């Protein structure tokens, strides 16, 4: 594969851009693999990449029912941050942020990671105290975090509604190393890097059945034939329950909900940060893409659904939130909005764990946070599959935590999936 570097860009500039290789192969499925990852999204591809890179595994396949980048990898608001405080979560997300910081070099693919700061506004003394507590916990664990007073905020982001907001802006909790990345580049970069290490990426290959014995999975029925594997990992967030039941494993602590994202027409540079409205209360996040579009999102659609299309009351909610903090957006036109189906788990935290079957491993339950988590998700999931032993940072991110009473409930919202936004 042609590496991306200055010389190759220069050379192709003189040869009509015709000598680039394709980014990943389109192999014919083999009858058997050592490891199969079901789900060719960011998490599945990152897992395959780190299995090959960190653990020197060969003979790996990633099965994708559609095409690379066509699922939730292309349906998110691209925010990367690590402002978590629960044990396990802060180590995990900080590790993920560190992987993001070097990801473009690591993958030889520009994922356009931009550490433009993540600014969470607060609107009351109580919310400020809550934010200070959370961000102090982050500092104690070595993550960067700071509180901006109103003057600092006004200097950095001058065009928020400081005049007549229904909930006056008092300041913000800020993580400077956070920001966003280009979602397509991340998923294409992982696919290309995994492929160059020998991973077979099988697109249009939907799992239609699971053949199992008492204790393990023998083979997968797919739309491209039967494929055997020694080890199998599920990384199909959104549809985890469907696949889990196909394997005859019953219920999961997961509900599928849909979350919308919105993109406006392109405008001149307006917003240099990721701004979040609603530390406690409403929920809204906005940033500006490199093309100039405002990218934003808000709450879930509030009812369980597998439909990849959003409802209109949420469009109104998000538009109202946008107007509440940035009235200057009043005349901007919305170009697109779409919904992604997500695993909302019972405590708002993810699963990277072993399962009741000896050769099946689970990666699921990403809630709102799947995009930023994807490098670490692949890193720890690959570690689990290769070493058969959960890393200490994810030792409680399993299906047994609910019965043991060690829920990892970052928001303290209780066992109702739709509340873990």
């Amino acid at each position, binding site marked *: 594969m042609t590496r991306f570097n200055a010389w190759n860009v220069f050379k192709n500039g003189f040869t009509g851009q015709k000598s680039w290789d394709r980014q990943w192969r389109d192999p014919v499925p083999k009858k058997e693999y050592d490891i199969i990852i079901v789900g060719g999204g960011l998490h599945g591809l990152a897992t395959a990449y780190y299995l090959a890179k960190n653990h020197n595994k060969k003979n790996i396949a990633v099965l994708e029912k559609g095409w690379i980048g066509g699922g939730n990898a292309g349906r998110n608001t691209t925010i990367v941050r690590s402002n978590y405080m629960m044990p396990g979560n802060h180590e995990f997300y900080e590790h993920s942020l560190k992987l993001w910081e070097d990801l473009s070099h690591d993958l030889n693919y520009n994922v356009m990671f931009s550490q433009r700061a993540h600014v969470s506004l607060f609107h009351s003394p109580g919310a400020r105290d809550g934010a200070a507590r959370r961000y102090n916990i982050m500092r104690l664990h070595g993550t960067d975090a700071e509180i901006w007073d109103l003057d600092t905020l006004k200097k950095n982001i001058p065009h928020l509604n400081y005049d007549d907001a229904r909930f006056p802006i008092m300041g913000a909790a800020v993580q400077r190393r956070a920001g966003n990345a280009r979602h397509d580049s991340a998923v294409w970069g992982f696919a290309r890097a995994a492929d160059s290490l020998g991973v077979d990426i099988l697109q249009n290959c939907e799992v239609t059945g699971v053949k199992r014995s008492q204790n393990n999975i023998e083979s997968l029925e797919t739309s491209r034939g039967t494929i055997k594997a020694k080890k199998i990992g599920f990384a199909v967030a959104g549809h985890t329950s469907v696949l889990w039941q196909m394997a005859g494993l019953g219920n999961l602590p997961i509900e599928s909900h849909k979350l919308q994202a919105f993109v406006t027409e392109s405008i001149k540079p307006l917003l240099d940060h990721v701004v979040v409205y609603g530390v406690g209360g409403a929920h809204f996040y906005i940033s500006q893409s490199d093309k100039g579009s405002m990218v934003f999102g808000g709450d879930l659609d509030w009812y*369980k659904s597998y439909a990849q299309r959003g409802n209109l009351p949420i469009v109104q909610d998000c538009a109202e939130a946008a107007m509440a903090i940035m009235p200057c957006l009043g005349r901007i036109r919305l170009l697109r909005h779409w919904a992604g189906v997500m695993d909302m788990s019972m405590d708002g935290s993810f699963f990277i764990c072993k399962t009741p079957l000896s050769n099946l491993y689970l990666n699921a339950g990403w809630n709102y946070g799947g995009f930023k988590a994807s490098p670490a998700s692949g890193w720890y999931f690959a570690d689990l599959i290769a070493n058969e032993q959960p890393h200490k940072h994810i030792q409680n991110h399993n299906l047994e935590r609910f019965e043991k009473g060690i829920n990892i409930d970052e928001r303290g919202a209780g066992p109702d999936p739709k509340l873990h936004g």
Partner: protein
Amino acid sequence: MIRIKCPYCGERDHSEFTYGGDASIKYPSLDAPASEWTKAIFFRENIRGMQKETWHHTNGCRLWLEVERSTITHEIKSVKACHPQIEKITKNKS
């Protein structure tokens, strides 16, 4: 917008309602072992297709309703009040 036919108020936008959750959950007896309570509280079938779920008519008559709805198409098959005694009242109304 989903339209829900409330048995008391008639057909209304779903934005008048609050989504509850899975209506098929049966809670075990109070002295049942913890594993049974764990299953009832935390584990869900998460059906892809027709499922029974609860909705609260928060900005209406405030009845809790049991709705049969497809999680793929959002089509609603049936709506009734959760509490069986309520039916007498709603029947008289219609």
